């Protein structure tokens, strides 16, 4: 008798799991609930004029909602809440500069990456062209960052001078104490945007390590993952992914950053 009840219970659970498909639920509800950052420009932040959350992540979220033909509902989040929001079922997707890591992939599923932020360099124009030069240069890094560790590990010939923060490292670069400084690409463009003589500097077009940003999806929602991945691939082939990128990091923006990674590219690390 007891065993029978257990089997029945198990059948209900299995059946329930197989039946409850998030993609169908979204279509039925007519709403796609997406968690995004509200204070991390240009990925997700509140626009001063429209008072709406906008950004690169938000544009992708809109594309998903449009494809499904449903309304988009944005929920502001902070880094720590991204996984709990997904596991508790409060949102359907997370698009919040969410770096794909093995540790996180145990708790949530990830789409293919749609953005990559890599460790890059800022140097005076014409000084730095390719990574092999790094071994003979003096490079400023921020104390206590993974940038410093990666550089020391992969380029043992480089002389690394660690400073307290990025603006300080930039001052050292400006004074000629170091020939390049290293940080994540988006941070470097942000820094360069505020430099008065920015025409004298450049961010060479290569990265030495990459963080891949993907869409966070509740664990086990296979059809939803497939839908997200298909949509991302379509956006890339239709040129829409490039248009979204250019809107936030294109040459006409305040923070121009060359697009080194396209959706579907092989991941290098």
């Amino acid at each position, binding site marked *: 008798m007891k065993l029978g009840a257990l089997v029945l219970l198990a059948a209900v659970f299995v059946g329930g799991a197989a039946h409850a498909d998030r993609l169908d639920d979204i279509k039925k509800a007519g709403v796609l609930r997406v968690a995004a950052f509200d204070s991390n420009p240009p990925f997700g932040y509140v626009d001063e004029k429209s008072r709406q959350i906008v950004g690169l992540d938000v544009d992708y979220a809109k594309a998903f909602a449009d494809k499904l033909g449903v309304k988009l509902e944005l929920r502001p989040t902070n880094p720590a809440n991204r996984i709990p929001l997904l596991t508790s079922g409060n949102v359907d997707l997370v698009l919040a500069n969410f770096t794909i890591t093995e540790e996180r992939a145990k708790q949530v599923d990830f789409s293919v990456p749609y953005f990559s932020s890599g460790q890059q360099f800022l140097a005076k124009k014409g000084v730095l062209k390719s990574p092999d030069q790094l071994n003979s240069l*003096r490079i*400023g890094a921020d*104390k*206590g*960052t993974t940038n*410093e*560790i990666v550089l020391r590990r992969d380029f043992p010939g480089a*002389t690394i*001078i*660690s*400073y*307290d923060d990025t603006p300080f490292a930039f*001052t*050292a670069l400006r*004074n*000629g*104490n*170091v*020939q390049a400084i290293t940080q994540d690409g988006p941070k470097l463009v942000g820094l360069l945007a505020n430099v008065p003589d920015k025409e004298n500097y450049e961010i060479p077009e290569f990265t030495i390590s990459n963080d891949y940003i993907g869409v966070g999806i509740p664990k086990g929602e296979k059809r939803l993952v497939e839908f997200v991945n298909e949509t991302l691939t379509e956006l890339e082939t239709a040129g829409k992914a490039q248009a979204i990128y250019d809107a936030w990091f294109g040459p006409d923006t305040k923070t121009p950053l060359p697009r080194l990674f396209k959706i579907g590219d092989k991941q290098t690390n």
Partner: protein
Amino acid sequence: MSLAAFGLAPIYVEWLLWGFAVTLLLSASACVAATLGGVLLCAARISPLAVLHVPARIYLGVFRNTPLLVQIFFWYFAGSAIFPTPLLDWFNNPHTVVLGFGGQTWLSFRLPSFEFWAGFTALTFYTTAFIAEEFRAGLRAVPAGQREGGLSLGLSPALVFFLVVVPQAARHAFAPLLGQYMNAVKNSSLTMAIGVAELSYASRQVETETFQTFEAFGIATVLYILAVAVIEGTGELVQRRREKKYGRGALS
């Protein structure tokens, strides 16, 4: 002998020991330079000539009354703005000095980095001001009767100064001088802000790589204490010899 200590991998202990070597080299060279500078500065300060003692007063005012960290930034950034570009490039590139004869290498070493020179300059200028004042205090501690006694014996003022006053002043200034040396060892840690790879900088690096914060800074603390203890021990030793020679209560 394995270098592993306090649960830190040997490579990191090696980093810390390298850092310690830089700390010792930096503070020792700054102490030597600052002692020589201190003698000159003290002489200028007590000189009756305005052309000497006015600049000396200004120097003391500037270097004793501003934080060392600010002075380090000054030499690092302003220093590199003052130098012409070719000289700066020379400083910024590593140079290896090879001493030898007929194709044989006797000694080969790398010249220190620009960061080291900036740190050395800052620490020297700063310590010079304090040491000069310790010397002046030593001179003032010699009772007036000593000088008068010398003069009454028919010695010239210069001879009185060098034979009577200075030896006593040196003894007065000895202990405070060692105190300034200890300060120099500790102050050298501030040069980590401009990236001198001394002991504190090395501990920070080890911490970044291993997250073994307590172990890294624990070893650094022990090494600092060791360096200062050696200076202190030297002082004790000199003091004891004096006592033997001149009897207890003799001026240290």
